[in-house]
């Protein structure tokens, strides 16, 4: 009998192309779940990463493509950084030539004005809270979005994480 846990633990990299209008949250959460399983990430951290990934996807769909159909490429993998620490990386690539330019200074800070909470502003704030790094690379035909999560804060004790 095949052991499912063993199978998913050997996944090196997941790549896919999605339509931004599709309800992809389940698929994105599955990607996160596979990587979480592999690294022994706790459920809370897993949900936070799923949230950040969902928010990036939603922002591209909303602000990059303006709610119109459009392709989004997504890839996730685990890597070791220069200090030997493990990181979970999500790269998104869109082909939207107008719209959203991310700047950290635009992320709403801790004192919320209840009258101006918007899904976009709140979403960026959640991404900034959860991700260790979030960067945009503007390309001639779209954007690349680079999300990095440190794995050291969400690995359950006693679980041997693998790369």
């Amino acid at each position, binding site marked *: 009998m095949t052991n499912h846990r063993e199978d998913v633990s050997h996944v090196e990299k997941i790549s896919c192309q999605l339509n931004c209008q599709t309800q992809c949250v389940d698929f994105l959460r599955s990607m996160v779940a596979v990587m979480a399983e592999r690294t022994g990430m706790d459920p809370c951290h897993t949900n936070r990463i799923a949230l950040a990934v969902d928010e990036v996807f*939603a922002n591209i769909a909303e602000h990059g493509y303006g709610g119109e159909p459009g392709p989004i490429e997504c890839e996730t993998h685990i890597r070791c950084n220069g200090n030997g620490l493990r990181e979970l990386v999500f790269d998104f690539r869109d082909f939207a030539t107008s719209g959203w330019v991310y700047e950290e200074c635009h992320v709403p800070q801790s004192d*919320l004005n209840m009258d101006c909470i918007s*899904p*976009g502003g709140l*979403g960026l704030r959640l991404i900034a809270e959860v991700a260790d790094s979030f960067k945009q690379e503007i390309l001639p035909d779209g954007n690349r979005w680079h999300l990095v999560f440190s794995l050291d804060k969400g690995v359950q004790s006693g679980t041997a994480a693998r790369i």
Partner: protein
Amino acid sequence: MELQLESESNGDGCVQLRVCGDVTIHTSSKLREKLKPLLAPDAREVRVLLDDVEFMDSSGIATLVEGLQWSRTSGGRFILAGLHENVRDVLELAKLDTVFDIEENNG
């Protein structure tokens, strides 16, 4: 997961809205459409039961904030009940957990 919504009124200005499923950018408009009419000037209390919601993103939170704003202007009570730990964590990340009227889970 398809979002399912069911409201129940006790006829005394108190309404409960039961939410079942993920609340995301694709489903939050459905929640908003259902919630908005419940936030009437003469309503006394709107209780949103979320025990079947395991995932909520910023669009869902923003929809709930509309309920909060209603409670501040109308004087009615807007209560969140049955929060899954994932949803509570998102509210904490957004620093809104102390702003909402959250009914603690029993047990």
